[in-house]
């Protein structure tokens, strides 16, 4: 009985202590909410930043923070200066936590695809992590504003987002009122019987809508799914976007697929390869260029 009372006393002391601690933040601390609703607490402006995705690296460099970036994921290749920074692994297959820690970062910028385990691990090692998970172009603009706030690059962020917002507005006003043609976004059609296409909730689906199109893959079950060739013929897309050009799929090879000759896009020759998929598939500052490119493909008469 004595023992029990002793433990209870310890427990009470601990709890009081914990509550007290959490109620008294460090004076200079600032808090932010990231894209997945986490609260991120920072002590001062980050000086050593690790980027865990190519799009995040592009955002940081676009805000003039290249000098503060001490580590990037393996695929960060833009701008060219980013290639020389220490690599810390990648979302697939894995990040090297030891390398990240050895860089002594005071901020890690993760991405929606970063496994939650890494976020928890880095956070527990005392490295604040902010997760960016934009769903569309507006999401990217908000993320740039957020990173600007966190890093103190607010004016750079303002300039960049204003210009992006202007371009976005221009696209939106240009397509206003026009009919939205059916667009098929093909991720990988090297097996032409069942091409992988962009589905609901994908960044590409959102991009198609913004560019004045209607995603025929929107009826699928996941953000990237295999659409039966018959279903494609049945959906009769008016425009086909080849995001698998890098895998060797060409306009000619699509034209020769059995049964596809009746598809409007094939009849009209409206099959467009994406030669630099980093513009459309990376939710970074250059996504505006990707959007304009896509809008030109979908509405060639409106965008010269």
């Amino acid at each position, binding site marked *: 009985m004595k023992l029990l009372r002793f433990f209870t006393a310890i427990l009470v002391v601990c709890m009081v202590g914990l509550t007290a601690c959490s109620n008294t933040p460090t004076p200079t601390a600032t808090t932010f909410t990231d894209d997945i609703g986490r609260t991120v607490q920072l002590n001062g402006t980050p000086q050593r930043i690790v980027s865990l995705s190519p799009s995040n690296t592009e955002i940081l460099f676009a805000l003039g923070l290249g000098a503060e970036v001490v580590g990037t994921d393996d695929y960060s290749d833009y701008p060219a200066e980013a290639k020389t920074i220490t690599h810390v692994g990648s979302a697939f297959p894995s990040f090297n936590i030891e390398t990240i820690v050895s860089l002594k970062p005071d901020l890690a910028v993760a991405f929606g695809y970063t496994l939650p385990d890494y976020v928890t691990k880095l956070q527990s090692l005392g490295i604040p992590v902010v997760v960016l998970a934009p769903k569309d172009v507006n999401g990217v603009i908000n993320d740039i504003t957020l990173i600007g706030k966190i890093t103190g690059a607010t004016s750079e962020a303002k300039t960049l987002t204003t210009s992006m917002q202007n371009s976005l507005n221009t696209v939106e006003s240009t397509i206003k009122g026009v009919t939205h043609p059916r667009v098929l976004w093909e991720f990988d059609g*090297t097996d032409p019987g069942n091409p992988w296409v962009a589905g609901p909730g994908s960044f590409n689906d959102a991009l198609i809508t913004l560019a004045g199109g209607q995603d025929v893959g929107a009826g699928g079950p996941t953000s990237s799914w295999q659409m039966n060739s*018959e279903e494609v*013929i049945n959906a009769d897309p008016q425009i086909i976007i080849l995001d698998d050009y890098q895998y*060797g799929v060409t306009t000619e090879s699509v034209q020769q697929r059995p049964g596809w000759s009746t598809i409007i896009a094939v009849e009209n020759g409206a099959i467009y390869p994406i030669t630099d998929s980093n513009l459309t598939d990376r939710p970074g500052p250059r996504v505006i260029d990707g959007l304009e490119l896509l809008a030109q493909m979908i509405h060639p008469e409106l965008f010269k």
Partner: protein
Amino acid sequence: MRKYKRAIIFGLAILLLAVVLLSASIGPVKIPIPVIMKMLLHNFGIYTNTSGWQAAQESILFQVRLPRVLGAVLVGAALSTAGVLFQGLLRNPMADPYIIGTASGAAFGATLAMLLPLSLVFYGFGLVPIAAFLGALGSVLLVYRLARFGGKAPIVSMLLAGFVISSFLVAIVMLLLTMSDRLGLRIQQVFSFLMGGISVTYWQQVVVLAPLVVLGIIAAMFFAGHLNAFSIGEEGAAYLGIDVEREKMIILGIGSLLTACAVSMGGLIGFVGLIIPHAMRLLLGPDHRLLLPASALAGASFLVIADLLARTLLSPAEIPIGVLTALIGAPFFLYLLRRSRREYAF
């Protein structure tokens, strides 16, 4: 007895025909079976009236759906026949068409082909099916060479060599997957291949592979009697006057060729080649003269149904066919196993 066997084979053939027609009629565009019959007759020049269907139905049926359905027929027949051959030859109930390295060889070939940023199509064949075909045959050849010693290839050595070569090739495939993006490898495409899925999109694929599969099955039937002899052991077979090593090599060759044809059309579809031969053995007994044709026909019907479900259940999306073969096949087989009064004769 003979009459009874003939009736079974005939019944299974009718079943296959029915299943093929059913599968050809269902899809995003429905085509009633009578219309299919008319279109077929018209195509052969027997029926001249072209009213009663739309051009879109015709192009979907002939250019997209039929090649795929027939692809499923070929893959199912090839895998089931190969399964009977391997189980009979190796006297191993766990043997399936993939047991001596074909699956990992095919996966290795396919993955390598996917590394190339090319999408060439030679006469209806993409790089991946060709590489899968060659990989499957290559790995079996390697396993056989490794297991063969002093003119003999003992079954244990073959199983072990097959296991080791498989593990080695799987490790390489995993390594390639790990380095995935850096090499421009398409993880989704690899996934589809490993899970299996009928990827017959061109008639040429059917035209080239159908004769190979049919000849393979006919060749296998010539060895039906000898496979019965193998069931009493290699020594017993030798006493019956069979040139064991030579026959073993030929039967392995036929089985591997059939499997290679199947993987080049459908990736790694599991379960069919293992369970259809067992189901037929439970229903019809262990005589290979009946077992081989019955398994080929039943396997073909089974895979046509699995493929139909794969493309319609979650329509417009596809389900990997390997998921369905196990999902439908496992309960069905357990039912047979529990119900069967017949003592299981292997």
